[in-house]
């Protein structure tokens, strides 16, 4: 019997978990932390319908990420999820996986920090996600969903990209998207093919040399070559995998740039601004790494100003400034610590910019 896509009303975290089963995940290792515990709870509850899938609650995120390392090295399609402190605890393992070129999907359902912080939503882990996070020169492929539908879709996309590039991929989302309920169309199980993994440690058969998963290259000459190889891979990812979305940018004078939850808030702001006769557009980066540098640069040459909106102290704004390269002023509007900016609050910031722009004319 051929399975069909299915429409359901679900929480973002549940949609992500259900999508993982449907995307053919072999193993999940995790540890409870708010606001992402629904993922492991859902997976545990549904596991009997997916007997081929290993779901294990580890003793810590440290153990969990290393179980992921082992299982990925053995050729399995693997996922791990956590939030804030748990993601921090995994960084050594993620660095090892990046160097050993092991695919995996990590979801960070962000909460407010630093420290134990708050369980309310935040985008404070942007730097950690897109700049590496652990030690050494490496990048994760980072996808930022803005709806429950994308929480599910990006699981498929995350597995696909991770396996294509043999690189860890991350879904960077937040507690609000994890907890909110929306309609979601779930693809059928088995729709994501498994690539060959001839490098996996499955047991050295007579017809091949032994496979070794390692991140240790003690000779600096060799280590440099490994780094050059990784960098070449990142350049290819930057060339081929940039994803973004724009709304009403053609005649825009002010460009909003926001990802994830704040992009939805900015969508409302953008409408309110247009109703008031202000020419405001929105660019939403969907991949945070690779970052949509060129589209932002092209729009920066046309608009009067850019306003970046984030739920942090100003992190993505640095990448936007690098992309804009001084072509126009780049302003920032942010809330921190689990606070969500309202569309009206953002509109005020837009109005301030518009007034300043007119005063200067």
């Amino acid at each position, binding site marked *: 019997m051929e399975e069909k896509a299915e429409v359901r009303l679900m929480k973002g975290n549940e949609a992500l978990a259900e999508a993982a089963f449907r995307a053919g995940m072999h193993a999940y290792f995790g540890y409870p932390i708010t606001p992402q515990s629904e993922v492991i709870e859902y997976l545990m509850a549904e596991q009997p319908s997916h007997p081929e899938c290993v779901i294990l609650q580890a003793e810590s995120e440290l*153990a969990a990420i290393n179980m992921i390392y082992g299982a990925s090295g053995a050729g399995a399609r693997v996922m791990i999820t956590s939030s804030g402190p748990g993601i921090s605890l995994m960084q050594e393992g993620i660095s090892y996986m990046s160097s050993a070129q092991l695919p995996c999907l990590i979801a960070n359902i962000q909460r407010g920090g630093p420290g134990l912080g708050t369980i309310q939503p935040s985008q404070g882990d942007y730097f950690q996600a897109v700049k590496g996070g652990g030690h050494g020169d490496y990048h994760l492929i980072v996808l930022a969903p803005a709806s429950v539908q994308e929480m599910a879709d990006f699981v498929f996309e995350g597995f696909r990209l991770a396996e294509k590039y043999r690189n860890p991929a991350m879904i960077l989302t937040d507690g609000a998207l994890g907890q909110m309920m929306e309609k979601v169309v779930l693809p059928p199980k088995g729709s994501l093919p498994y690539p060959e993994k001839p490098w996996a440690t499955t047991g050295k058969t007579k017809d091949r040399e032994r496979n070794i998963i390692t991140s240790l290259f003690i000779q600096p000459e060799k280590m440099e070559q490994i780094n050059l190889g990784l960098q070449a891979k990142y350049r290819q990812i930057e060339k081929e995998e940039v994803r973004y979305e724009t709304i009403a940018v053609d005649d825009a004078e002010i460009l909003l740039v926001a990802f994830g939850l704040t992009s939805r808030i900015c969508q409302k702001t953008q409408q309110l601004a247009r109703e008031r006769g202000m020419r405001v557009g929105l660019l939403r980066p969907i991949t945070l790494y690779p970052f949509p540098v060129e589209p932002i640069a092209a729009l920066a040459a046309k608009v009067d100003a850019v306003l970046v909106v984030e739920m942090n102290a100003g992190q993505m704004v640095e990448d936007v400034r690098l992309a804009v390269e001084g072509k126009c002023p780049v302003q920032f509007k942010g809330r921190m610590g689990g606070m969500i900016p309202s569309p009206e609050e953002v509109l005020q910031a837009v109005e301030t910019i518009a007034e300043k722009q007119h005063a200067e004319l």
Partner: protein
Amino acid sequence: MDIPPLTNGYEIVYKKPQTLTDTPMHYCPGCGHGVAHRVLMEVVEEMGIQDRTIGVAPVGCSVFAYDYMNIDMQEAPHGRASAVASGIKRVLPDRYVFSYQGDGDLAAIGTGETIHVVNRGENILMVFINNGVYGMTGGQMAPTTLLGMKTTTTPYGREVKTAGHPLRITNLVAQLPGACYVTRQAVHTPTTVRKLKKAFRAALEYQQKQQGTCFVEVVSNCPSSWKMTPAEANKWLEENMFPFYPLGDLKLPAQSN
């Protein structure tokens, strides 16, 4: 084509197993790691399980084990070998999986993983090389360092007051219901090597029966960090390590029912 060895009429009674590579080992003269590698790989060859065996070697002197063992292997972060091995075993339950860890790795930075892997009864073999020091990083104190023993971070000898007690983690592990077979062996004489080989064989055979974690401690040496000749180190081992870490079985499968 296999070229027959030049034996000049003699019979070959001892040779390198083909589960070891031709790479010369980097271990210091007299170090127990090389012999322990060899014995483990002899067992893998004799059981005919090279194509189904996956090893995990974490950071430590034996991190390069994958250069010497001719099997599929994964290198692991310091302390995490047993978690990595659990991940492999969970997705490939019909394979033979082992971790090969030093005392710093297994009993200090990786203590949490050690306890929980055994407590879950993961069907893996954990090989625990106890040489009383951190070899790779230049001879610092390990959790197993004996009282009074001088290391680079206990230059006046280990004291309980500041550094606590040497940890007999194998005794702790043997208390856990998930442990199937727990034994303490050595590797410094022909007799101990033969016994160790039996222990490795038993541990790998039990793995197939899915009765829980098998744990083989090897009380070993580190002539370089101990600043002794190999002969002195082995004598010191017998006189000082064995009284605190007595050899023998701590748990047999029959008791685990």
